[in-house]
């Protein structure tokens, strides 16, 4: 298997504020995020040779990107992989540059979820999706309910008292809100307490409102260049060590094999990403991580699926702050999906934005000490079959 390691570097990034952005259109978010990245990279818009637009609901083709930015007759493609769309756009740009097809490429992620008017994210009902989806007989299951299926089984299988379980999940929400409160771009900047989380109205037991990320608008962008010219363009390029995407065959509702207490795509993808990046002990070697905390239970399971903790340790890890700013491996230092928000197409790139800033030691009050390697994790689809995307970056070659 090949490797992307140290072939490409991120030379510029931008990210808008996320939130209920009634005054901002899709074009506004694309422009704001992209121009911040262009200025950060110190390049001109005309230097961009190819572009990828990641969006799930806010644009159908390349035609959504080029007119907003006035990109002059360059290749543009729209990509989508549900909630893992942002990382998919980054991956496309990275591979294009690594292939030698272009020297500088742009990845933009954007979503205007608040324009849809729905409570929560709408399902993607497309003819031809799957037999059960097109016959109109597939169950309608909201994202919180899907993760409740996981949470119920997790508590049951591991004999976890629901009160204890809910408290652990609450600690994760509290941690992410603490981080978000230090981040002016986050949708929510309020700190919360464990009691507030436990008292929040139940959406799908055992998950309450404060166990779930909200519905937000936002945009983010990255500019990537070949590693050997990146050093000429800025003194602190951030090198891509690994870009890994894994999709399972969605077996897991077809037979009785799936246990509902882990996500196989994440387990397989993490191993693939670490191998590509040359990481042997991720808990020790990673300095910072952004993971897909759409629901608190997913973050708890991710600590295990990504190989940083295990079933026996995870409760202690959460309670002792292993994954907090001062802990061994700070996770979701910018507030995560929970606080920063989850505009689907933008999220992967927003995660990379935080890791990028952390690795350049520009994260201000959220700065982790001695940053070297950072990981972003993005997940789209169902827990029994979806898309896992991981990107590992570092501030040094080698």
């Amino acid at each position, binding site marked *: 298997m090949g490797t992307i390691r140290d072939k490409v570097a991120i030379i510029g990034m931008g990210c808008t504020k996320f939130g209920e952005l009634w005054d901002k259109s899709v074009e506004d978010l694309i422009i704001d995020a992209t121009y911040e990245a262009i200025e950060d990279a110190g390049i001109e818009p005309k230097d961009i040779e190819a572009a990828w637009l990641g969006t799930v609901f806010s644009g159908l083709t390349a035609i959504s990107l080029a007119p907003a930015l006035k990109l002059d007759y360059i290749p543009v493609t729209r990509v989508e992989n549900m909630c893992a769309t942002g990382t998919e756009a980054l991956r496309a740009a990275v591979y294009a540059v690594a292939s030698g097809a272009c020297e500088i490429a742009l990845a933009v992620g954007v979503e205007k979820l608040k324009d849809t*008017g*729905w*409570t*929560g994210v*709408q*399902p993607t*009902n497309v*003819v031809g999706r799957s*037999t*059960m989806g*097109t*016959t*109109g*007989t597939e*169950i*309608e*299951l*909201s994202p*919180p*309910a*899907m993760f*409740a*299926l*996981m949470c*119920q*089984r997790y508590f*049951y299988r591991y004999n976890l008292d629901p009160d204890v379980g809910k408290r652990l999940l609450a600690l994760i929400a509290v941690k992410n809100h603490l981080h978000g409160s230090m981040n002016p771009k986050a949708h929510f900047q309020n700190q919360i307490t464990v009691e507030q989380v436990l008292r929040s109205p*139940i*959406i*799908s*037991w055992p998950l309450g409102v404060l166990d779930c990320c909200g519905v937000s608008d936002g945009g983010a962008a990255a500019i990537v260049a070949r590693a050997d010219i990146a050093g000429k363009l800025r003194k602190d390029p951030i090198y891509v060590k690994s870009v890994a995407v894994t999709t399972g*065959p969605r*077996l897991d*509702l*077809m*037979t*009785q*094999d799936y246990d*509902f207490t882990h996500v196989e795509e994440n387990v397989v993808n993490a191993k693939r990403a670490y191998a590509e990046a040359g990481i042997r002990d991720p808990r020790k070697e990673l300095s910072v991580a952004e993971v897909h905390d759409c629901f608190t239970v997913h973050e708890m399971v991710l600590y295990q699926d990504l190989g940083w903790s295990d079933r026996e340790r995870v409760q202690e890890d959460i309670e002792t702050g292993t994954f907090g700013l001062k802990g061994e491996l700070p996770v979701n230092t910018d507030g995560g999906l929970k606080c920063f928000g989850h505009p689907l197409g933008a999220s992967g790139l927003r995660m990379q934005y935080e890791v990028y800033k952390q690795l350049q030691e520009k994260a201000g009050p959220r700065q982790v000490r001695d940053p070297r390697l950072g990981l972003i994790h993005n997940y789209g689809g169902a827990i029994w079959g979806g898309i896992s995307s991981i990107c590992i970056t570092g501030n040094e070659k080698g």
Partner: protein
Amino acid sequence: MVGITSSGSYVPVYRLAREEIARAWKSRALGGERAVAKYDEDAVTMAACAVLDCLKDTRRIIDGLFFGSTTAPYEEKQSAAILGAMADLSREIRTADFAGSLRAGTIALAGALDAVKSGALNNALVAVSDLRMGAGKSQFEQQFGDAAAAFTIGSSDVIAAFEGSFSLSSELYDSWRPGRSAFVQSWEERFVVTEGYMNAMEKVISGIMRRYELTPKDFTTVVFYGPDKRSHGALARKLGFDLKTQVQDPFFDLIGNSGAAALPLMLVAALSEASPNDRILVANYGDGADAFILSVTDQIGHCQQKKKLQERLNNKTYIDYERYLTWRNLVPFDQPRRPELKPPAVPCLWRARRSVLALYGSKCRRCGTVQYPPQRICARCRAKDDFEDYKLSDKKGEVFTYALDSLTAAVEQPAIIAVIDFDGGGRLACEVAECEPSEIHIGMPVEMTVRKVGKTDVIQNYFWKARPVR
């Protein structure tokens, strides 16, 4: 010898106490309770439940399916064809809908008997079902109940032989419902009961007794339709039948008047208590009347393996009047801001009809793994196109995990979704019917049942849901 060879029934688990209806309207309660089909049920789903009950443990090859109802879901689209697909019958059968009359069930029965007698059919299936509505505050609203019944008709292993019949036609407005109207209309009660019901039923019953030279005491059991308890009792007394020993309980207090299904359901109950050589008089009413004479054979023991209807009626969940209003969509109400479910793509539904309507999965011939939906490439061993059909609708299973979803466009929140693991293999994520949110738990034993799914004005979709085994 031609006659009934097996029977089945279905009554929804939900009950509305008549006191509760009277509370809502500050009116007088008629006593007892009535069965209420949930929002995910209709005449077709109820009939399917009765049909599957009837066909349980049978090896008969059905070559005709007749469906009777006054409340079929479509004006133009045959319900019997849908039922045939749900019951996994061959397509090479004769299907027919009998509609427009409370007598639809016995007209269908007569048709089936004639078809078998003439040799046109070997084993006919008759299913009768009704979900009628009375306007708010009306007597009908209290009196009606929702239910279904089914029979197989054949000439071998007959449990109740058909001995004779007599029918009357009667053009009279007693109760009726024009197509566009949701509620059954009726004329003034005294006219309806005396000139309509009593008149026709007296004529048909005395007519059949005269024709076959029989008297009331020649019948072990008398099963006849009644619009309500009082009229039913009055007719029995007028004709000289003993209400205590001869007359089959019409279930007014427990189910209500289930329209076209009322008399058939009573017949199912009567057969489950019958003994060899019993002579049964059956009389149904609606735009005239039908009467039959049945003679119970010594095969009757087999029919009674199934749990008696009376016992199954003990399985019930009481609802309040507000819930009834919601289920029948009688009050516009606010829904969560969730996208409407798209109607099915019809070619997809057609292609997948066996896995949708009969819940067929596949079983890999190489590794034996059961999978749903059917998979051309085995989910476990990756064998390609090497599988056999495997039906899941008749399998039992248990809840592996579940969720109570409040963010749903379903009629009631929370929606109950479960992942079901079937005995013998196979898994399905589906809704759970006949279950309150407080009842569901991991490990709960379930069986499958068919219900309405989706919400669209254009196509009514049907699929399977799990329900607790009781």
